[in-house]
């Protein structure tokens, strides 16, 4: 067969590859709106008005003054929290979030087949330990991350506790939870995984 004929046939046959169903446009739109509203709310919580910033700055100076005063009388005091440590914790969170996203994505895909492998429960248990550590770390000072971690903990507990011959209802409830709380969208929005951004417009 010549190249031209081959290419025509290839194009025709390839139309069946991952043939998309009808676009669920209304469902997706509802979720987009919900997620955007949620992200706006988080921004409102985090963003401060100018007078609040000045108040906080004044309070910080006051705390610093007290700290220096205490140091000057040689009383052992805890060093003030540093933003560098927060950044370090955020960086440490990246691989954890990537693993969790991948686990939940695979879980959702596999659950469609009717039975979920027991490895998911084991991996969820493993991730639960890290989730708890993250919630107790300075990383959880970020309200957006803290809220996500709490939801992830709930999801992971449910997966970790799935019985061996897992009940379809249990699996459906977990998937519903993932959708209703927009967990996957929030996981992807929390920050890019270092080194994975391809060339492009972003």
């Amino acid at each position: 067969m010549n190249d031209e004929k081959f290419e025509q046939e290839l194009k025709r046959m390839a139309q069946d590859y991952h043939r998309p169903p009808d676009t669920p446009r209304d469902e997706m739109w509802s979720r987009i709106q919900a997620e955007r509203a949620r992200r706006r709310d988080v921004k409102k919580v985090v963003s401060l008005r100018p007078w609040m910033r000045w108040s906080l700055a004044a309070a910080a100076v006051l705390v610093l003054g007290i700290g220096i005063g205490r140091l000057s009388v040689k009383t052992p005091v805890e060093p003030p929290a540093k933003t560098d440590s927060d950044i370090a914790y955020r960086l440490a969170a990246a691989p954890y979030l990537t693993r969790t996203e991948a686990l939940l994505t695979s879980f959702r895909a596999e659950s469609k087949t009717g039975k979920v492998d027991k490895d998911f429960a084991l991996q969820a248990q493993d991730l639960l330990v890290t989730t708890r550590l993250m919630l107790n770390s300075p990383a959880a000072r970020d309200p957006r991350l803290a809220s996500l971690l709490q939801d992830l903990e709930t999801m992971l507990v449910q997966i970790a506790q799935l019985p061996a011959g897992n009940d379809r209802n249990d699996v459906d409830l977990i998937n519903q939870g993932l959708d209703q709380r927009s967990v996957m969208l929030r996981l992807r929005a929390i920050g890019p995984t270092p080194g994975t951004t391809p060339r492009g417009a972003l």
Partner: protein
Amino acid sequence: MDDRELIARVRAGDPAAERALYDAHVDRVYRLSYRMAGDDDLARDFTQETFIRAFERLDTFRGESAFSTWLHSIATTVALNGLRKLKRFRKRETDIGEADGVTTSRTHAEPDLKKRLAQAIDALPEGYRTVFLLHDVEGYTHEEIGAALAIESGTSKAQLSRARAKLRIALADFAGEWIG
């Protein structure tokens, strides 16, 4: 109403214009996401994330290219990043399974032509596969692909040519079935 006008209205805070802009483009973004992911949940996630990012960053869209080109560049980035994460995770799972001596049985029945084609497309290197899906399956031009993937259109042509060559080799056993 064209994209330019809709975008102006979205920037002015018109929610109906947001929905109209979404309606005008969602089919193509969802199709692209589905072709790349092969899974409805993933395709929905990728589509939703694409539009969330697009609306968040609409102020950065300068109109130097078509809105659809800009949007599809976001969509391909979202999908490729999502699929890479999933691939790494699945590889890790496979490694653990092999280390535990857990193996899945494989059937050695000869797949039919469509199955073989699907397997061959899945096995293409990421760049070749993306260009092949965009061009031969979804009908994008090389210029659109170049803009979406931040590559030269010549690179897109070269990758498509290599993708087809690899597929031809992979499907050599079925040469007799192509016509008919």
